[in-house]
């Protein structure tokens, strides 16, 4: 490879070649399973192996015509959007506050705010199960939305906080000195600048909720089953190609989220590059 680091000796060339070979194998390991199940969802047969007997959309048809799968997709969307909205409000406010707050307690508060990410899912789920059951929040949409918001908000605090760190507070002061009210300064100066950060935070929050299954496993009634929850039962009972269709739909959502995030990052870098 032409762009490899300076390779002076044969042994260095061998080491570099080994790195490339091993890395390629790891990349295959990472990507192949995800790519391998996609074509299976278009199979006309019901066995999950290659070669495919023929192509068809029967499993997608199955998915769309199954009230169970469609209801789970709807649930994932409703819970995802609601918990994203709630975590955006709470997380953005907190990130704004944390950016200005100076205290010795700040690392402690930050650790507390971020802890839902680190604590094992089962522990949060068991705790919520005990806590929400007596007040009627298990088997309800509200309970799931609240729980997912708790898990998603740390990502909003991190992404929005990172954006605020690169934000020049003098701009807000300038707005204030030019007579803008705090609300107006936020709406017309701060908000447009941190919008990409907010969007990334929202994507992270949505992805967190959309992918979450442990809490749903403990707390959802039959009415609130989400797409990952339905996949969990499906995998346990028997893997039909309909699950691979569901997997393709889930992966498509992930790819769209990832692509949007990448576009935001590029835009942000371009803006930064243009400014500096």
């Amino acid at each position, binding site marked *: 490879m032409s*762009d490899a*680091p*300076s390779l*002076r*000796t044969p042994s260095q060339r061998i080491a570099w070649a080994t790195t*490339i070979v*091993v*890395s390629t194998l*790891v990349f295959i390991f*990472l*990507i192949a*399973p*995800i790519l391998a*199940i996609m074509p299976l969802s278009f199979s006309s047969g019901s066995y999950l*192996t*290659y070669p495919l007997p023929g192509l068809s959309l029967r499993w997608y048809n199955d998915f769309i015509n199954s009230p169970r799968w469609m209801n789970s997709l709807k649930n994932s969307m409703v819970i995802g959007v609601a918990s994203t909205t709630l975590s955006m409000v*709470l997380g953005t*406010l*907190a990130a704004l*506050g944390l950016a*200005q*707050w*100076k*205290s010795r307690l700040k690392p402690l508060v930050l650790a*507390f*705010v971020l*802890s*839902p990410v680190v*604590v*094992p*899912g*089962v*522990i949060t789920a*068991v*705790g*919520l*199960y*005990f*806590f929400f059951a007596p007040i009627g929040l298990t088997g309800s949409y509200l309970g799931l939305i*609240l*729980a997912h918001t*708790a898990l998603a*908000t740390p990502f909003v*605090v991190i992404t929005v906080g990172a954006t605020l760190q690169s934000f020049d507070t003098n701009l807000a002061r300038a707005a204030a000195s030019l007579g803008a009210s705090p609300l107006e300064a936020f709406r017309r100066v701060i908000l447009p600048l941190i919008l990409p950060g907010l969007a990334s935070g929202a994507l992270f929050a949505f*992805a967190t909720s959309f*992918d979450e*299954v*442990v809490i749903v496993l*403990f707390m959802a009634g039959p009415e609130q089953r989400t797409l990952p929850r339905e*996949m*969990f039962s499906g*995998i*346990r009972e028997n*893997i039909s190609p309909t699950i691979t269709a569901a*997997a393709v739909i*889930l*992966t498509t959502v*992930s790819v769209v*989220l*990832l692509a949007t995030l990448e576009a935001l990052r590029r835009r942000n870098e371009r803006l930064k590059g243009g400014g500096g």
Partner: protein
Amino acid sequence: MTAASLTGADAETKVPLKRRLKQAERARQIKALALVLPLLLFLLFTFAGPIAGMLWRAVDDQEVRQVLPQTIVALANWDGKDLPDEKAYAALANDIQAARAAGTIAIAAKRLNYALNGFRTILTSTARNLKIQPEPGTAKEALGKINPAWRNRTTWTTIRDAGGPVTSFYLLAALDLVRNADGAIVAASPDQAIYREIFARTFLISLGVTALCLILGFPVAYLLAALPPGRSNLLMIFVLLPFWTSLLVRTCAWIVLLQSNGVVNESLHWLGIIDAPLRLIYNRFGVCVAMTHVLLPFMILPLYSSMKAISPAYMRAAASLGAPPLTAFLRIYLPQTLPGIGAGSLLVFILALGYYITPALVGGAADQMISYFIALYTTETANWGLASALGALLLLATVLLALVYGKLVQGQQVTGGMKN
């Protein structure tokens, strides 16, 4: 000293300004705190509160106390050496009749059965056969006649020890320990001592997965850090796409690939390498492969960022000073990646410890990690005390490791700042 040396006019204008600035700053700080407060209150309700509740359940012991209140009072002054006196027997007879009327016998029976196998039968049979309150002074004899277990000291120490209001019973049980009739902590009987092995298994699987992630992740991170940004950004998609793909999709993919009539086995068979399908899933191998796949990005990303921060000038300097490439790598490059290795390994290990979904779906019965048992005792057998105690121990391990991780990452930021 400064205030005294100032002229009067200066002091008058400066001090109020200073104070005004201070007041403005304090108002800003209060406003900042007010912005954080909603989230703090929210997390208190949806996260910290529930977890505190779970921790409380690990030591909470109210069932027996509520169902057999008089017995617990009567046993309070019992020395535990011989059988308790007639008063305790009469109190128990009273309690059992009241509990039978209230339908609460099963609650106490379940709790006592955890401590002494067979207690459920003792209590229910006694409740069934104790038709009338025994004549004063004959309770001891009457109960002993209904079930000889009441002539046994251990039966009574079990009730006393389960009398609450708090207990170390579940936490000890989670460590395969138990309190004997004399109150000493001893090893639990072999058929109940399963949790140390499960904890050891959880640590072992997490350690293995961490090692696999490091071995596979290091070359990839090195490659990504060495390539020019354009290329490495492109290759980064291979790391980020699995990272963003649903855990369920990835687990499902591995089952489809590895099951006995799955893609891998069929391909190997078709190629003539194997005759009978290999057992690749629903065992330890499948768990390690699937977990490594899920956690690998968490290793690659911190490794990559620590390698990206290493200036190529160091390696050039080492080479120009005559170090052979391998020596330069081992003594110059590798030590600088150690913080990244530490951070990545700790992160993967912490995340692996709490894994539930992947082992539950691709593991066999002997590959289930601690989270599986916490879930099992919560939803299936409703042994909430034990579930909470196991959860408390898992949480403790996680929090300790997370503190080390925090120190490590913080240290990196400090040195990173000094380098700039």
